[in-house]
């Protein structure tokens, strides 16, 4: 009986001493941090997964407070967390809109011609070897290097073209770096009207290699009421900040290359 009492007392004393020690050191060695940093840290999920590219939630909070990372840098927290952090950092909801990846190529097997059937390649080695899988020298190679790096399993190669499943995409941008042809861009998640081609050749040449490619006919620019779509280098591109998503350009496009993205 005596040993139980002694044990309880000793453990309690150790606990109190240790707790007091922690409180004392916490006060004594308190480091003043940016108020916003701790507020941002509160909003983050706190599982230190490192998906943002920083060492942990603390490191990301410090980077956001210092302005080195965007308020939506946490892919786990998503929009709700970005919203809260945006309030702390005094940025509007517009700025915290998430982005998703988009593959700017529509050259599936039925609209362009496959030059050969290659097995066991990845996109980068195909580019290094100078292979054109399809006739188009700008289009998707379809080996899925982007799909291989995607941590969310959000990219599928369907019919020779990579496509992003928007629901799964967190906008981390790893695929953007992985694509040797630079086909993938991050677009604001709410935008549906996107030019799905990267071919900078002139119209007749595009026609030869792909029936779905942008021919640079400028019809879309004339349709646009908000001056959001322009043709440069024989390729239409949309300025997302001006675009109102009216879809008139997509209606008028003769090759139907301006589309709502697939896999929505």
């Amino acid at each position, binding site marked *: 009986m005596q*040993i139980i009492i002694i044990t309880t007392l000793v453990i309690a004393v150790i606990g109190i001493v240790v707790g007091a020690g922690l409180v004392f050191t916490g006060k004594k060695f308190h480091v003043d941090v940016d108020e916003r940093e701790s507020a941002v840290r509160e909003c983050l999920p706190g599982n230190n997964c490192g998906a943002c590219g920083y060492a942990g939630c603390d490191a990301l909070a410090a980077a956001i407070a210092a302005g080195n990372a965007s308020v939506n840098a946490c892919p786990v927290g998503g929009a709700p967390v970005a919203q809260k952090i945006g309030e702390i950092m005094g940025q509007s909801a517009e700025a915290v809109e998430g982005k998703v990846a988009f593959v700017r190529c529509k050259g599936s097997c039925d609209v362009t011609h496959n030059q050969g059937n290659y097995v066991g390649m990845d996109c980068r080695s195909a580019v290094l070897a100078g292979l054109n899988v399809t006739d188009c020298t700008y289009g998707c190679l379809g080996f899925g290097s982007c799909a291989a790096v995607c941590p969310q399993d959000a990219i599928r190669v369907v019919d020779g073209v990579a496509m992003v499943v928007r629901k799964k995409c967190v906008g981390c941008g790893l695929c953007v770096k992985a694509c040797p042809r630079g086909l993938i861009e991050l677009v604001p998640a709410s935008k549906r009207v996107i030019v799905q081609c990267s071919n900078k050749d002139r119209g007749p040449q595009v026609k030869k290699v792909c029936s779905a490619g942008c021919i640079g006919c400028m019809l879309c620019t004339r349709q646009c009421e908000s001056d959001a779509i322009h043709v440069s280098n024989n390729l239409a591109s949309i300025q997302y900040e001006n675009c109102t998503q009216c879809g008139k350009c997509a209606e008028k496009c003769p090759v139907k290359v301006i589309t709502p993205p697939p896999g929505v």
Partner: protein
Amino acid sequence: MKSLILIIITGALINNVVLNQFLGICSFLGVSKQMKASASLGGAVIFVITIASAVASLLYDYVLAPLGMDFMKTIVFILVIAALVQIVEMFLKKTSPGVYKALGIYLPLITTNCAVLGVALTNVQDGYNFIESVFSGFGTAVGFTLAIVLLASIRSRIREEDIPAPLRGAPIVLISAALMSIAFMGFSGLSF
């Protein structure tokens, strides 16, 4: 003096904490992706285990053993080591931000590492006194650092090799770790 050197060599090589006693496997496999990170973790582990063995030894010799509370040592050690690491972390953050930057993020990871607790308990089991405990802790931590840095360098080589598809990722790391463990068994033949 000779016995202290012997304790360090025993801790680092013959009874290597990871490869021979299979403690602290989690961070051994988890943080060995990059050489720099694993070296930083190794530094933090040396720091924490040395301090933890010192404190645990004092606590056992002057509080637990005299009161006959031998059976509570696991719980007391967990409590004290966890708090100790927190205090050390706060102390470092204030006094030397440079060291904190290098080791800081790994300190909380080590708080509950079973290697730290394992060393404290083994010291008591082996009947080491204060000095011997500190040296044993230091040796063991050096052994951990050695193992994790070796694995990190093996993994950096693995990345450039053409590994058969089913073995890519975790399996080849486990196989490498197992081969390292077999290699370290060779040290058990050392005698003085």
